[in-house]
């Protein structure tokens, strides 16, 4: 192998300069208050740009009703933005534009949210818009029908998207009877939901006792609280009941789940197992171990299967902290012929993390990475909103953000080993492959028994 140096002359230092002294991270001051109707409000001032971002969360998402009505929370959220008692759809969109605002209404597994961001000079109007959508959504038959058709077409596209098919299948095999198993409804289910079902979800769960309002941006905290009290203070509704979910299965041994996508020119490889929530005492240990394994560009898995072997463009691992039960997963989109080789390396790197302590240098790098990226997130509006949402939605300790960096710095190689042994469960991991059966079935069978599915999620073998 020939090495070519494309060099031009000039004197210069040949080693990287040392890091300078670290400047302390000043977390934007948070103010927390609960209104008399139970609405929890968290504010943080950030004066870098004349913008305000606000998110109103409800602690009920798709999982709240997934066993009876999958995806109902998501379609409800979609329809929420299409009209209120006083504002038809077109008026909402025009009002938003007049305030320089973007609006999103979505539901995930654990929460539903109305998110708005716009110019600070319109902060009062932005809050009124959020309150109007939270309290007065009209669910007209016409809007429901239009959004229903949109949703069905979106689902059809998702069912041709390898990334979607892979995560859908992994969630199903990891969570079994638990509502987290279902990430999307079927076309038939979307076709069957009535406007009364949507309105009922809204009435039950879009209530102040179930809500958290976050606002971050260029405002004065005192004036903002007054505005919020004025807009949200008269809102009253009973607290919803929270239903208990069935336990997810305990998977023993590896199993391969192959989703057949005819004509695929690449294979989406996923490996996963159940893990923990953000409230678990092991959470920071797991995130640190994940960053060494495959959660950063400079991580073992990325170096191995991308930079050394060239199997894939964007391999990554992640710890996913759902509220009741988290999971750990690895994914990589690889050329068909290296599907088995990729799985071998994924398991090799998991087992190496489980058996040999990480080096002092790796540990130090990873701790710096975690604390540094955390600091970057303090410097943007979206970053601050996201971190506050993590803390207050999951009811983490109030000092979570302030103490995060020192807690990360205190972690040891033993902590990483403990986390890897507990949560990189290579012996019982579930394998999902999305690709063309003819190209990969033989490789799949090398790892465990194989169950095949079609793109609709229907089991087609055994």
């Amino acid at each position, binding site marked *: *192998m*020939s090495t*070519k140096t*494309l*060099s*031009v002359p*000039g004197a*210069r230092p040949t080693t*990287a*300069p*040392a*890091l*300078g*002294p*670290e*400047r302390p*991270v*000043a977390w934007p001051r948070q103010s927390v208050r609960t209104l008399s109707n139970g609405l929890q409000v968290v504010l943080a001032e950030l004066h*870098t*740009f004349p*913008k305000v971002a606000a998110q109103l969360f409800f602690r009920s998402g798709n999982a709240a009703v997934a066993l009876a009505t999958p995806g109902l929370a998501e379609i409800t959220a979609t329809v929420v933005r299409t009209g209120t008692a006083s504002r038809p759809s*077109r008026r909402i969109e*025009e009002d938003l*534009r*007049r305030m*320089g605002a973007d609006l999103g209404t979505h539901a995930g597994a654990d929460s539903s949210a109305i998110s708005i961001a716009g*110019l600070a*000079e319109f902060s009062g109007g932005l809050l009124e818009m959020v309150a109007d959508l939270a309290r007065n959504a009209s669910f007209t038959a016409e809007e429901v029908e*239009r959004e229903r*058709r*949109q949703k069905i*077409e*979106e689902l*059809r*596209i998702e069912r*041709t*998207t*390898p990334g979607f098919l892979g995560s859908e299948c992994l969630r199903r095999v990891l969570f079994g009877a638990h509502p987290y198993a279902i990430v999307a409804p079927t076309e038939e289910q979307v076709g069957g939901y009535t406007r009364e079902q949507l309105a009922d979800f809204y009435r039950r769960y879009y209530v102040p006792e179930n809500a958290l309002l976050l606002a971050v941006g260029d405002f004065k905290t005192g004036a903002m609280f007054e505005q919020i009290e004025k807009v949200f203070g008269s809102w009253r509704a009973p607290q919803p009941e929270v239903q208990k979910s069935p336990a997810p299965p305990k998977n023993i041994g590896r199993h391969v789940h192959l989703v057949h996508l*005819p*004509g695929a*020119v690449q294979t989406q490889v996923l490996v996963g197992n159940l893990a923990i929530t953000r409230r678990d005492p092991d959470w920071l240990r797991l995130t640190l171990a994940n960053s060494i394994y495959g959660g950063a*560009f*400079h991580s073992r898995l990325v*170096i191995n299967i991308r*930079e050394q072997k*060239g199997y*894939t*463009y964007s391999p990554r691992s992640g710890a996913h902290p759902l509220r009741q039960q988290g999971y750990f997963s690895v994914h990589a989109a690889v*050329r068909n012929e290296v599907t088995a080789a990729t799985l071998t390396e994924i398991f090799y790197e998991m087992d190496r993390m489980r058996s040999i302590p990480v080096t002092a240098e790796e540990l130090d790098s990873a701790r*710096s990475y975690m604390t*540094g*990226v955390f*600091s*970057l*997130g303090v*410097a*943007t509006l*979206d*970053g601050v909103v*996201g971190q506050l949402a993590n803390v207050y939605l999951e009811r983490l300790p109030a000092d979570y953000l302030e103490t995060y960096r020192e807690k990360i710095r205190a972690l040891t190689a033993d902590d990483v080993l403990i986390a890897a042994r507990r949560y990189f469960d290579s012996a019982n991991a579930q394998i999902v492959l999305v690709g063309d059966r003819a190209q990969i079935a033989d490789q799949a069978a090398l790892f465990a028994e194989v169950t095949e599915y079609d793109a609709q999620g229907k089991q087609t073998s055994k």
Partner: protein
Amino acid sequence: MERLRIPVEYTTLANGLRVVASPDRSAPVVTVGVYYQIGFRLEPRGRSGFAHLFEHMMFQGSENAGKMEHIRLINSSGGLLNGTTNYDITNYFESVPSNALERVLWLEADRMRALKVDDENLRNQRDVVKEEVRVNVLNQPYGGFPWLDLPPVAFRNWPNAHNFYGDFTDLDAATLEDVGNFFHTYYAPNNAVLLMLGDFEPAEGFALAKRYFEDIPAHPLPPRANVSEPAQTEERRGEVEEKFGPLPAMAIGYTAPPRGTDDWYAATILDRALHGGRSGRVHRELVLEKQIAVEADGSADTFDTNGPTQMVTRIFHKPEFTTDQTLAAFDEIIRGVQENEIREDELDPVKVKFRADFYSMLEGGMGAHMPRFGLMHYLACFTLFDGDPQRINTILDGFLAVTPKQAQAAARKYLVPKNRAIVVRRPVAHGAAR
């Protein structure tokens, strides 16, 4: 109206490297970028996709930081990094805690000075790039729609009209010699701008820039290539097979007025009246009111191109409507802005939204952990293309001054059939997905 003022300081080193500093001490982080004025428009013929493949090679090792060292040094300093290839620029950027500023400058200078790569690195990144093309284009529904579909239909001059991600045969043909030639031709300090944003004093940043970059020799640049397009005389059309997705889609691109002209400002505001989410006329008419489309929106690469570019509308329509029916409904929207002025009570909110979007871009623009990426990006483009980073503080004026009459004139002049190209994505397998 509150007017934002961004602090910007600007200097040029003896070797021609332009350096821009924009301090902001509110958080202890810095974002650093090096932008080279070379993109996929000017990659060598027979080497489609090369500018992007080359961008990958810039992460494979430089004289004093071998393979993975660059990435290790940034990640272990608590930072994130990336690079992107665009039509007329290629950028490399990092966000790090501010105590790593000097280290980042050392790394960027090291790879501006001397790339150190071998055949094994090239083979490896060629494989990686092919998987990138598969995951983003060949194995995705609507992959490459319409950014790879439109240029070959819309344009006639190869720099504007080829496959920017690259044919696999061209990627396979790339050699280490090509890598060397490309580096020596375009990766010169006098063809680049260095940007520093965030937690540092400009004087200190300029001193560090001088220390690490100024002795990198300048070299002569090739004469500016001709990227102009021959005059278009009729509407152009193309069709691409959609292998996975179930819905028919179409993209309509109108070639935009030249950068910096009065028409450019007017056409940009016109674009925002037509597009820009659910309040734009295209989405409102096609999705919300006529309900022909499932999704319809569009955009123009206003700030970061320096050659022929298009305002593009993307429509995914219901299978029960034909291409012709959908296009007729779209054309009716275009006729609407040609025949009648957009009234001020519609155009004023469009401008408010334009200002808000501009601020959002400056503030972030690349996710929650890359502070001020957009500010860096715009400053780089104003420096490289217009010679003046201070334009960041005045550019809004031109857009906010556009009148209904000017927007209408731009619609009549530019939104005409002989200035447009249309590409249809036709699903081949829509039975299979249902």
